[in-house]
C-alpha cells in the first residue's frame, strides 16, 4: 500500500533529474534558475509526500514546504537581480561569457 508514496517520490526524482540536467546544460543564467526551480519543486513533492504518507500529524512538514517556496521566490528575486546587473555591465547573461571575467 505504499504505491502512492513511491509514485510521488519517483516523480520527484524524475523532476530532480530534469532540473539537474537543465541547470548544468543551459548556457544562460535565467535558464539555470529554471533548472534550480525544478530541483526545488522536486524537494517540495518529497516533503508533501512524506507528510501525507508517513507523518500526517507532523504539521511542521508543511511549514517546511512554505520555507522551500520562500526559498524558490528568494532565489528567483536574487537571481534575476544578478542577471540585470550582469546584463547592464556586460550586455550578456550567458554563463560562457561570464567565465571570461576571470581571464
Amino acid at each position: 500500500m505504499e504505491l502512492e508514496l513511491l509514485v510521488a517520490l519517483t516523480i520527484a526524482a524524475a523532476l530532480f533529474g530534469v532540473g539537474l540536467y537543465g541547470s548544468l546544460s543551459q548556457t544562460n543564467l535565467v535558464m539555470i534558475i529554471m533548472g534550480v526551480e525544478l530541483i526545488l519543486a522536486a524537494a517540495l513533492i518529497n516533503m508533501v509526500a512524506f507528510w501525507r504518507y508517513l507523518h500526517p500529524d507532523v504539521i511542521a512538514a508543511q511549514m517546511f514546504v512554505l520555507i522551500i517556496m520562500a526559498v524558490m521566490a528568494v532565489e528567483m528575486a536574487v537571481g534575476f537581480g544578478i542577471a540585470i546587473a550582469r546584463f547592464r555591465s556586460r550586455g550578456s547573461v550567458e554563463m560562457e561569457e561570464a567565465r571570461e571575467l576571470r581571464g
Partner: protein
Amino acid sequence: MTALAQYAILLGLTLGTVAFVYAVYALARVIGRVQPEPGKDVPATAGTLSRDPVWVRYHAKYYGYALLFLAFDMEMAFMYPWAVVYREEGLVALLDMGVFLAILFLGLLYGWSQGALRRQ
C-alpha cells in the same frame, strides 16, 4: 462531499469548459472555413501590413517592481494560515505578524529609497 471529490469536480469543470469551447469552434467550422487571402493573416497594425517579427528581447520597464514582487509575494503564504487562527491566538498573533510585516515593509522601503519603485 470529500475534498477529493471536490477536486474531481473542479477538474471536470476544467475539462468540460475546454470541451465546450471546442464544441463552439466545431460549430463555427461547420458554418464556414476561412478563405485564405493575401494580407489577411498578417498582424493588423492600423492599416499597415506589419510583417516584422516582434518577438525580440522586450524591455519591461517595471522590473524593479517585479523583483520586489517576487520576494514580497511570499508573504502571502504565511499570512493565510495566520489569518485563520488570528482570533484564537490573539495578541501574540498580532505582534508576531506585526514583526514579520515590519521586516518586509522595511525591504519595501529600502527598494523605494533606492528607486526600485519607479519606471526604470
